[in-house]
């Protein structure tokens, strides 16, 4: 979902520029081209966000819907706006929410870093094989990407559960006497996130690496740099935009991740996504949940704005 959001933001701008370059003056057509994604964004992104923002300033009540209206007309025809900031204060004061946020950030940053390291290695390896074999390898990465996230996470649960494949294998080989509890901790969550979001790094990095000119690499070698040094001095800096794009995509997508911590994390792995779910569906505290959503959206948008400034999304 996050991915779609980015592309729908960046696509019209890019197209506009292209058209203007091609035809000089295309003010009219670019306006009409822009109106479709703009309408889409306003209807399905901005408007819901405004509603969420509005609910976040209301109070919880037992009714349908379970929150108070913040706008009211007084008898003297004044518009009265009641803003309840309690939810936001709780977010700052209550260590439960604070920890949930911190946990989410820690897991997200950690996983992003690991994703970049492993994803870069895979993308580099793909870019090094003969061009004839590359489509097959890209397809293999895509297959895991196309498989439902839920199925992929369930497979990990199967593999790592106490009665799962890994434990039984280790028991059979006599390496361990009793089950190891792989699941139910932050490492399991990180593992799941890294596995599921790896393609977000592999694709943009590969796209950039493929374009790094072979003669630049050869020139560096020709000038006396050992291939290992060429990699760090030429290849990595030239693929920086791919690393940034991939990193931001993973970061933005995983901060609010719910499914993976819920399934792999066990009861103690409290992340912001899970707390949100609980507030909405267990506590029916919509205003609190909305306040959390607003803060979460804020933290998600920051890295994307950063990416837009760097204009690396063009890749």
């Amino acid at each position, binding site marked *: 979902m996050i991915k779609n959001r980015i592309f729908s933001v960046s696509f019209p701008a890019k197209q506009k520029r292209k058209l203007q370059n091609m035809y000089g003056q295309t003010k009219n057509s670019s306006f009409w081209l822009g109106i479709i994604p703009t309408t889409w964004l306003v209807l399905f992104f901005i408007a819901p966000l405004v509603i969420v923002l509005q609910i976040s300033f209301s109070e919880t009540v037992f009714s349908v819907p379970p929150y108070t209206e913040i706008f009211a007309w007084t008898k003297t025809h004044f518009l009265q706006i009641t803003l309840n900031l309690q939810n936001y204060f709780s977010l700052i004061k209550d260590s439960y929410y604070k920890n949930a946020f911190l946990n989410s950030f820690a897991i997200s940053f950690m996983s992003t870093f690991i994703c970049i390291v492993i994803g870069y290695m895979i993308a580099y390896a793909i870019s090094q094989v003969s061009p004839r074999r590359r489509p097959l390898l890209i397809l293999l990465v895509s297959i895991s990407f196309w498989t439902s996230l839920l199925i992929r996470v369930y497979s990990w649960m199967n593999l790592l559960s106490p009665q799962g494949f890994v434990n039984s294998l280790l028991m059979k080989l006599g390496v361990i006497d009793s089950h190891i509890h792989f699941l139910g901790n932050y490492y399991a969550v990180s593992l799941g996130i890294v596995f599921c979001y790896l393609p977000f790094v592999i694709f943009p990095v590969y796209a950039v690496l493929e374009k790094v000119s072979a*003669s630049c690499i050869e020139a*560096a070698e*020709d000038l006396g740099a050992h291939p290992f040094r060429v990699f760090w001095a030429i290849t990595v800096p030239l693929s920086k935009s791919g690393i940034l794009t991939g990193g931001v995509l993973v970061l933005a997508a995983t901060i609010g991740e719910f499914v993976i911590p819920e399934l792999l994390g066990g009861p103690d792995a409290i992340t912001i996504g899970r707390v949100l779910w609980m507030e909405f569906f267990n506590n029916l505290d919509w205003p609190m949940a909305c306040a959390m959503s607003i803060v979460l959206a804020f933290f998600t948008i920051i890295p994307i704005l950063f990416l837009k400034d760097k204009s690396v999304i063009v890749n």
Partner: protein
Amino acid sequence: MKNISLSINKGELFSLLGGSGCGKTTLLRMLAGFEKPSSGKIYIDGVDVTDWPPYKRPVNLMFQSYALFPHMNVYQNIAFGLKYDNNIKKGEIDDRVSEVLGLVQLSGFEHRKPDQLSGGQMQRVALARSLAKRPKLLLLDEPLAALDKKLREQTQFELVNIQERVGITFIMVTHDQEEAMTMSSRIGVMEDGRVLQVGDPHDVYEFPNSRYVARFIGDINLFDGTVIESGMDYVEVESKDTDCLFHVEHTGTIPMGAEVTVAIRPEKVMISTIKPNQSKNWTSGIVKEIAYLGDISIYHIALQSGRTIKATLPNLLRMSERNIEWEDVVYLFWRAENNIILTS
């Protein structure tokens, strides 16, 4: 690559000339170390470097695409090779960079990024970068191909001047025979992975050793024929294409009856409206085309056999005053020593 044996002299500017796909770039990449010969050896200064990786060879290559590092400025690009050279002290790098930048007349451009440079400037930065390490051998892959014509001619002389000043051996790959002729001390003409002829520009032009070289360098008229008389220092050749006899000054032995080709350069052919006073090496025909190039004109003259001969004449007179016009019957003649006889 087939059976190539070349020795390049220290300090010379050697050109490998050939059409696309003749193997000249492959040969250059072998010298740089990017390709391995399946057999044979490469020696530089008497040292066998055949198995050395590119980063160890005392050789630098200037790429056709220049291959400047886009994320580094001009200074960093040039200093790149110096940084990894243990023989160069840290403090020396600045001096070396400004020295080569002065050499290519780009002082003050240190902080520009490659995308802020024009094509000509990029070419000179690439040259400076490959000169900075003072290699024993500098390889240039089509160094001027990406420049426009005017700039290319100007840069040809600059490049030769720089080569003379630094004294480094240059090996240049080019498909442009004019470029090879003006710049090189020697030329190696390549075709299909073989070196056909090696010689100085004058040799290769005036005494091509094969039909391919004759045709590839400059313009030439070729006549297939049979040797009908073979003397000590001459042969006489009869050709179906013309009614005249070719009398060719030639030292060597070509047997009677051998199938040969006689070649004659267009600028060596003289045109006259009066029948020449010589019994051999002349023919006559009708002017079919006159290509006016300003300084010279190229005349296409159709012979009775249907063959066309090209002859170039300097335009000594203004066009309106010239005395040869389309459809005129003219006589063509040339001197015996200007005939070239080709057997392969």
